[in-house]
């Protein structure tokens, strides 16, 4: 099967306009005849469900949390980018496009990224109209701040809770559609399989997490907005419930997975404190606007109190190595720089796994009140977790898994290789290449949900002409039996190890072998170890209780079962990509000053993997990345 990205012809700036005109429309009176199943209720899912219902489609929306308002988009702190140029500082759609393509280390699709930049302004307008309380200047106009990887100030924010406020905007739009009858909401319901009929996605199998009942849902199209797979690493900044099950089960039904090795390690997280750690907490990148990152120049100083180390003995390594971007160097670069100084033995805090993020200079320059107004909630959060007051002592931070750029392969219409299956937001692979810039995830999730899927899904309905599915069809029965069989199998092992202990072991392996830096030997070791671990999982797992009613141990084990398979594909992808790019840093491929060395001649493509059955090697398909407008330069932030 050849991958067709469906990128429209014509000049870059006109592609989306032209495409919108070329897309077929569904008559307003006919829209209610189509049913759409939306899985996930974060920024992408809630905005898609609400917008599709507003158009007249019948929507069913599913989320595993107790309310759609809890989706993990809510935890995004810093902001959302938009090329409004309100600051008169030289921003433009083209500049946002270029920064995003460059930030992604020239591994994203040009046409998608340009469209994203084009839509960024509409998103701000939409959110303001919904009542999102963005930060304002005294004159009443919208305020902006700077973020990593950009030299203009284009990030809109609502204190340190931008994700929460944008999600509540989308959630409120969703609630309005529920009250109007356009959306039927299924909270505490988890999708466990995709149903494909005649090659088209026509439904899903879900488990009601309260009753334990397995239910089948038929629809004319399925939209997955189920987020990223960062929790495969066990420790990440993701919510505990975030999981890869929906996209993994879709992969096993024929939706190719693209670039799974592209994972983002966020440079500013609170360091791990011990074995018991259940998740990692991010400190917003916006802190790097005013905080300065440093470690002692000498190893011997690491244990000393930071205040007693004189300026001359401190190494502000980001400012030293990247003078023009300084502390605002992009995430992948900042993370690797932190790892490098810690590997040299110059890390601080327990285990030497931390660097300082110091606000002393900013407090001196701006006063404590300005800093409190800008970042108060983040300082509070830091104090709750560490017991330390960051107004007085520098924060200690260390990189952690945060976001996954890889995901289900989709074309320009956001449709996967299974017709009728659309994938939005972090769950797809399309816009961030090998590294995502800060404040771009919110932008992408909302662009996909508010402004892209409402146009492209109709075209699918008009052109595909598929018969209405029914849950009485054998494909539904077969998928349901498969789901039930897997749950029963998990319950019947009755071994000795908990899902958590197996997951933690897998996560450690991945962090060491497929984390911030990877190499051939390490990836091969991981690829040898993962199948053993998976075998142990299926032989020695213990899950208490049964499948009726609430059983959190069973829910979790079922997700870990998928991580045990997902991890292998991730390492395989990392092994095959013999170059370094963005978040994928292969130690064998670096410049003399330790920067990522791309190999455009051999690897300027999207790696899309096709499932071939249990025990079979997946097949690699390549979508070449063709740059019509930009020149693939070496990414430099010096």
């Amino acid at each position, binding site marked *: 099967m050849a991958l067709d990205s469906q990128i429209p012809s014509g000049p870059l700036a006109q592609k989306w306009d032209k495409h919108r005109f070329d897309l077929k429309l569904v008559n307003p009176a006919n829209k209610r005849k189509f049913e759409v199943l939306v899985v996930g209720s974060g920024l992408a899912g809630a905005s898609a469900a609400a917008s599709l219902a507003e158009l007249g489609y019948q929507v069913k929306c599913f989320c595993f949390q*107790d309310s759609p308002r809890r989706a993990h988009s809510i935890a995004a702190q810093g902001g959302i980018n938009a090329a409004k140029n309100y600051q008169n500082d030289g921003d433009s759609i083209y500049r946002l496009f270029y920064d995003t393509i460059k930030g992604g280390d020239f591994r994203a699709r040009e046409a998608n990224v340009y469209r994203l930049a084009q839509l960024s302004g509409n998103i701000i307008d939409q959110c303001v109209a919904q009542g999102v309380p963005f930060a304002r200047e005294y*004159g*009443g106009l919208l305020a902006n701040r700077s973020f990593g990887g950009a030299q203009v100030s284009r990030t809109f924010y609502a204190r340190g809770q931008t994700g929460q406020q944008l999600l509540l905007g989308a959630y409120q739009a969703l*609630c309005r559609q*529920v*009250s109007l009858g356009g959306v039927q909401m299924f909270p505490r319901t988890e999708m466990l399989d995709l149903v494909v009929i005649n090659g088209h996605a026509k439904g899903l199998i879900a488990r009601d997490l309260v009753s334990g009942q397995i239910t089948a849902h038929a629809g004319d199209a399925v939209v997955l907005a189920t987020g990223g797979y960062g929790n495969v690493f066990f420790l990440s900044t993701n919510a505990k419930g975030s999981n890869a099950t929906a996209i993994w089960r879709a992969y096993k039904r024929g939706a190719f997975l693209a670039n799974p090795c592209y994972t983002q390690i966020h440079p500013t997280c609170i360091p791990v*404190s011990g074995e018991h750690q*259940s998740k990692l907490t991010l400190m917003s990148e916006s802190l790097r606007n005013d905080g300065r990152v440093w470690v002692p120049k000498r190893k011997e100083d690491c244990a000393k109190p930071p205040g007693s180390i004189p300026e001359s003995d401190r190494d502000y390594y980001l400012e030293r190595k990247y003078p023009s971007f300084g502390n605002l160097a992009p995430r992948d670069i900042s993370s690797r720089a932190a790892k490098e100084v810690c590997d040299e033995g110059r890390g601080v805090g327990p285990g030497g796994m931390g660097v300082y993020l110091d606000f002393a200079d900013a407090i001196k320059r701006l006063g404590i009140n300005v800093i409190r107004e800008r970042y108060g909630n983040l300082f509070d959060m830091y104090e709750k977790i560490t017991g330390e007051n960051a107004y007085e002592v520098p924060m200690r931070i260390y990189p952690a898994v945060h976001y996954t750029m890889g995901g289900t392969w989709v074309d320009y219409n956001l449709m996967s290789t299974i017709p009728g299956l659309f994938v939005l937001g972090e769950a797809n692979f399309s816009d961030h290449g090998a590294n995502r810039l800060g404040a771009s995830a919110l932008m992408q999730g909302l662009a996909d949900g*508010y402004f892209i899927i409402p146009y492209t899904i109709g075209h699918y309905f008009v052109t595909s002409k598929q018969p209405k599915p029914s849950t009485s069809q054998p494909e539904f029965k077969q998928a349901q039996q498969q789901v039930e069989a897997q749950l029963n199998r998990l319950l019947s092992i009755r071994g000795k190890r908990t899902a958590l202990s197996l997951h933690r072991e897998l996560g450690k392996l991945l962090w060491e072998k497929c984390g911030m830096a990877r190499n051939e030997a390490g990836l091969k070791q991981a690829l040898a170890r993962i199948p053993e671990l998976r075998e142990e999982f299926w032989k020695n797992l213990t899950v208490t209780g049964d499948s009726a009613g609430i059983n959190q*141990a069973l829910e979790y084990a079922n997700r870990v079962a998928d991580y045990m398979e997902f991890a292998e594909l991730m390492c395989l992808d990392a092994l095959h990509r013999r170059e370094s790019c963005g978040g994928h840093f292969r130690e064998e491929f670096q410049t003399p000053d330790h920067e990522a060395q791309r190999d455009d001649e051999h690897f300027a493509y999207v790696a899309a993997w096709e499932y071939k059955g249990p025990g079979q090697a997946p097949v690699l398909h390549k979508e070449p990345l063709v740059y019509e407008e930009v020149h693939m330069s070496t990414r430099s932030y010096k």
Partner: protein
Amino acid sequence: MNLTLKVWRQKDGQTPGRFETYEAKNVLEDMSFLEMLDVVNEELIERGQEPIAFDSDCREGICGMCSLVINGVPHGGHKGTATCQLHMRHFKDGQTITIEPWRAKAFPLLKDLIVNRSAFDRIIQAGGFVSVNTGGAPDGNALPVPKEAADRSMDAAACIGCGACVAACKNASAMLFVAAKVSHLNLLPQGHPEKDRRALAMVRQMDQEGFGACTVTGSCEAVCPKEISLSFIAKLNRDYGLAALKGK
């Protein structure tokens, strides 16, 4: 440190519940409260016993999913702190900790420490939104919003919908939750056209769900992990009163 936990266990909404006692050994002060429970649960599973069911998701104090009454106080009684951000350094060796679910008629219990808070969703569905469809919004700067209004709106919008306010209230009233959403939207020019309808509809839904009346004791504000101010209840009363007088 070593702790004794008295935890509410209940199979489902139909079966009566009871307290069970568990020992939590070698608890480190850097653990979060939920990580301490994770460790207890691991031991229970290893012994073939059912783990304690509780809700949590983001574990950074923003999703509003976690919901435990700790020693009689929702979220444990540390100012501005949700259960998931409560750390064990606040407890002492040898202490006994009682852990219960949110208790309110409008939040039916599902299992152990998990309750059903869908009533909150239905209150938002009744009017907690601005009626704009996607597309056609004017430029974000077309309508200036005074900084004070935006800031105050944001103070209210910070609500995470956890329901601690209801759990703390002797009447199980949802006034602080409703007041926060009504204030968030009514303070902004974008929310103004539906100001009256919103206040009336959301209060009506709140009453229908079985939440109690507000007697302004302020226990809600005291336990709110986002420190939502009681003054928003005054604002809600004002908006509701004006709307009622207009006969809308």
